[in-house]
């Protein structure tokens, strides 16, 4: 890593790092809400999230140097008290979420001026901080019930964020409502599952649960709890066919929300799924293997193909990208259901890459929509002539989405292929290859429209996106290229993550 953040921080802070990554944004959220000037609220939000990301980096370095860190919240020792625990599995997720958070916040500056009425902007930023804190909390917590709490904190604020889009497009209300119903369904299932586990093991601490589950693995209570948890978290992570909340929520919410959610929310939910499946339950449990092979893997395959098809036929660019996201979740789930260290590492790798490219794609689309006013694909004809920088970044990220060599997407797809071949999952390779061909179709359609079609009068009015938007956009696009050339940093993280998952997470 470039800078040794850890050594720059005072010793007393280092001890409290696990809680600090969540604390800043959470405390700043109500202050933001009270700010009369939204620009000050924005500055506060940016500050809060930057500190959070610095702490996340420091925490990652600490974990890399010293292994798992356990933090007893309020001094109450786990397993009775709530534990925050950082290890190689969640530290990279924290870094990912907070870095995307910083970029998205910078991106928010020009876009919320357009998308959100002035009197609501401070409140909007407050909800955003809460959502961010919730996501970080899901990633850091070591307590299964606390994970539910943070999941709900982030989800409820997300419903608000999506619904704010209603002032521009009223369909955002129904999208938010549907999202609310379904999200609550998922959360409820999860908490029911936790209830079962509590009944069987008598603890809520994940590490503690993990050590007790093998003794009671044959009890029906555990199986029922397992089923509820898988269904609940799969819904949050947008596993096919539980993804149907996602396309509308992404399409109609303000562009900023789409960018932030696409790059973080499903990723965190995916992490939660990994955490529960690998660190609480274990891939060695027989019923889990069966569910991997007969439920998750087929669903992942169907997602990768069916949702790519759906993406091919979309007329709205945001919706197309949303369906592509569900297809990509299929890729990640495929890697996960291999139940091997290589598979898990590959799917975490793909998850990080996907956050980079989808974030950039939605940003670029937002940059064009700002001056175009439409997100219909046909209205994007030839906008590259008027907004070359935006369009080029869009192109780079789109190629990464397809998996063109020299982009990050290529390396993670290859890693997934290799992991699948290691277990002779031929069909999985074929499925992912078909899905990639479909990706060529929808991405090709988009690039052809943006770069080669003749612009009409409306398109000639398009302006280059503002600098505040181009900066985060290009950081992400160049990230896709950089990690396409040298992904050793990410792979070292994801390999570490897979290691943790397969040693059961406990030292």
């Amino acid at each position: 890593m470039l800078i040794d953040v850890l050594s720059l921080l005072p010793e007393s802070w280092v001890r409290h790092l696990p809680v600090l990554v969540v604390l800043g944004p959470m405390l700043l959220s109500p202050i933001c809400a009270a700010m009369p000037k939204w620009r000050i609220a924005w500055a506060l939000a940016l500050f809060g999230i930057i500190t959070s990301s610095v702490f996340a980096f420091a925490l990652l370095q600490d974990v890399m140097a010293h292994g798992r860190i356990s933090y007893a919240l309020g001094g109450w020792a786990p397993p009775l008290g709530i534990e925050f625990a950082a290890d190689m599995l969640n530290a990279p997720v924290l870094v990912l979420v907070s870095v995307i958070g910083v970029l998205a916040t910078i991106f928010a500056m020009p876009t919320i001026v357009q998308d959100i009425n002035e009197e609501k902007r401070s409140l909007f930023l407050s909800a955003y901080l809460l959502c961010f804190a919730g996501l970080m909390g899901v990633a850091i917590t070591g307590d299964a019930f606390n994970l539910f709490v943070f999941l709900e904190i982030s989800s409820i604020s997300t419903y608000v964020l999506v619904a704010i889009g209603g002032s521009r497009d009223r369909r955002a209300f129904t999208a938010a409502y549907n999202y609310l119903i379904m999200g609550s369904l998922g959360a409820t299932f999860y908490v029911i599952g936790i209830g079962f586990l509590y009944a069987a093991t008598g603890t809520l601490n994940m590490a503690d649960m993990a050590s007790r589950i093998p003794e009671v693995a044959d009890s029906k209570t555990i199986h029922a709890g397992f089923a509820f948890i898988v269904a609940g978290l799969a819904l949050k992570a947008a596993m096919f066919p539980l993804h149907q909340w996602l396309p509308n929520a992404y399409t109609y919410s303000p562009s900023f929300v789409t960018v932030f959610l696409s790059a973080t929310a499903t990723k965190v939910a995916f992490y939660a799924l990994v955490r529960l499946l690998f660190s609480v339950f274990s891939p060695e449990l027989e019923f889990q293997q069966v569910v991997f092979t007969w439920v998750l893997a087929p669903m992942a395959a169907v997602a990768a193909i069916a949702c790519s098809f759906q993406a091919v036929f979309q007329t709205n660019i945001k919706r197309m990208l949303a369906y592509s996201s569900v297809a990509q979740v299929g890729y990640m789930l495929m890697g996960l259901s291999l139940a091997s260290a290589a598979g898990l590492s590959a799917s975490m790798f793909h998850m990080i890459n996907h956050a980079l490219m989808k974030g950039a794609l939605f940003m670029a689309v937002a940059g064009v929509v700002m001056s175009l006013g439409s997100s219909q694909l046909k209205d994007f004809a030839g906008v590259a002539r008027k907004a070359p920088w935006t369009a080029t970044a869009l192109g780079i990220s789109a190629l990464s989405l397809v998996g063109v060599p020299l982009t990050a997407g290529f390396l993670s797809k290859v890693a997934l292929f290799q992991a699948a071949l290691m277990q002779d999952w031929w069909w999985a390779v074929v499925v992912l290859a078909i899905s990639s061909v479909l990706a060529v179709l929808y991405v090709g359609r988009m690039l052809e429209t943006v770069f080669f079609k003749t612009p009409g009068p409306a398109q000639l009015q398009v302006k280059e996106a503002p600098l505040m938007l181009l900066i985060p956009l290009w950081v992400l696009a160049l990230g896709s290229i950089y990690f396409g050339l040298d992904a050793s940093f990410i792979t070292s993280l994801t390999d570490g993550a897979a290691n943790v998952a397969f040693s059961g997470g406990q030292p």
Partner: protein
Amino acid sequence: MGDALMSLLSHTNPGFIVILAGMLAYVIRGEIPRAVVTIGGPLLGLAALVLHSALSEPLATLNMMDMTFVLYQVERVSIVFGLAFLIAATVNSIFALHNKDPLQDSMALIYAGAAIAATFAGDLITVFVFWELTAVSSVFLILKSGTPEAYKASMRYLGIQILSGVLLLMGATFIMGEFGTLEFDAFISEGEGLSLQDDPGAIFLFVALGIKAAFPLLHNWLQDSYSKATHTGAVVLSAFTTKLAVYALWRFFPGEDSLIWIGAIMTVFPVFFAVIENDLRKVLAYSLNNQVGFMVCAIGIGTPLALNGAAAHAFAHIIYKGLLFMSMGAVMYRVGTTKATELGGLYRTMPFTAIFCIIGAASISAFPLFSGFVAKSLTMSAVGYEHMTIIWMMLLFASAGVLEHSGIKIPFFAFFAHDSGKRPKEAPFNMLLAMGIASFFCIWIGFPFLGGTEFLYGLLPYRDEAMVYLEQSLWTTDHVLTQMQLLVFAALAFIVLNRVKLYPPEKRGVVLDFDWVYRRPLYHALVWTGAVWNKAGPAMTGAALRLSRRVYNHIEATFSPQGELSRGPLSAGMAIWTSIVLAIVMVLALIVGPH
């Protein structure tokens, strides 16, 4: 300074230089500076190739993700292909000077550079990257024709080329699994390749290369796209894609038995299509197929002589095929069409183009004293030495066929035959210059005592065998006479056939030779087959289209925004789905869980 530059050149893959020149060509707006870049780029590449510092060891590597990519490694065989590619790139740049089209210039060079870079790559991933780059850059050469047919053809072309790349990548994944590395040195050596039986990934590679080399039944993209490319584009396209595949086959599958038959069939079947085809550029595309067949067959035989033959043939072929496409490009440029029925008598006003075309035609027909003869003889002799009678017959027939459709038909219908009344201007000077350079190579290599034959044979991978062949077999009376006999009879056949069009078919039975006796019915049978195919083809395509339209409608009905998957009250549907997933997981867990 000079030394530093020299050492840089000696370690730089010539392809990179050409690609760089291609990128520059797009940016530079002045015509003269651009001409300097487009011609100078390949020439600098030539210099880099001449200066290469070592054989068969990595000259430039890149380490990434725990893998070593060998960006530049020179083998004897890659020199033959790379040199031909570089000459072709230079000549093509000269040929395209009048175009003043930065996009085409740039894409042609990037395409050429990618092919060259792939020839000098030392690992599969590097090859894959440039493999795909050739596909992506070359598509512009078709696209720039600007017609709707060209657009559709270019998209079909791109699709199939990308498919080839994807298969290559899949093959690479297997090879990675089998050998733990993708560096060529680890799994192939000169004359030793992969085995279709023993290496699981080889079949993917084989199909990937087969697509690019236009194996029978995988060949349609070639005729489809080349004949629709721009007049300069077709010249560029003819040189690289298929020969890159031949190069790769040479490296990966020398001595693979199935290639003998594939190659032999490849030489034979295009003959019939070419004979009845009216569009002369399409005729050339078919004959390209036929020529590649000779190389593929030689690679399949796999003896040093045959492998020499494949490489030499590719070298000569790149130049004379380019020459033929250039002459047709010149006609296209001046007249606007290459349909045989609309041409004729052009020699009056385009004498130089006609002469160059005849030189190309003589070369491709393997007339002694022209380059095709010294190259193709190696292959024919190799087949003869292995006593493969049927294969030898097929190749012999194909050789006669080449003369029919490329050697005589092309120049005859374009420049002589009935006078079309068209009086186009002679081709522009840059075109003539380009054709002149190519003609020079055709003659230099083929004509004895000029040193060209020795030069080519000296380059070949198995140099000693080549030299022995040159001294003992090539110019023997026996050999030259056999070839002349074949050519004369084939020419006679053309003349007679052309004449008898005026007479009732019964009178065609002019017996020329025993050879001719057995070939004539076969010839007719196959012309007939060709005609039937032409009728049946559209019917089958139509049926396939109808079927695929139905499938497409189903897909659209399911997946489109108005389709099944997007319908229904969301929350209720989702709740049901969630319950279903829950139920499935729970039932599975409950069944499997307790022991």
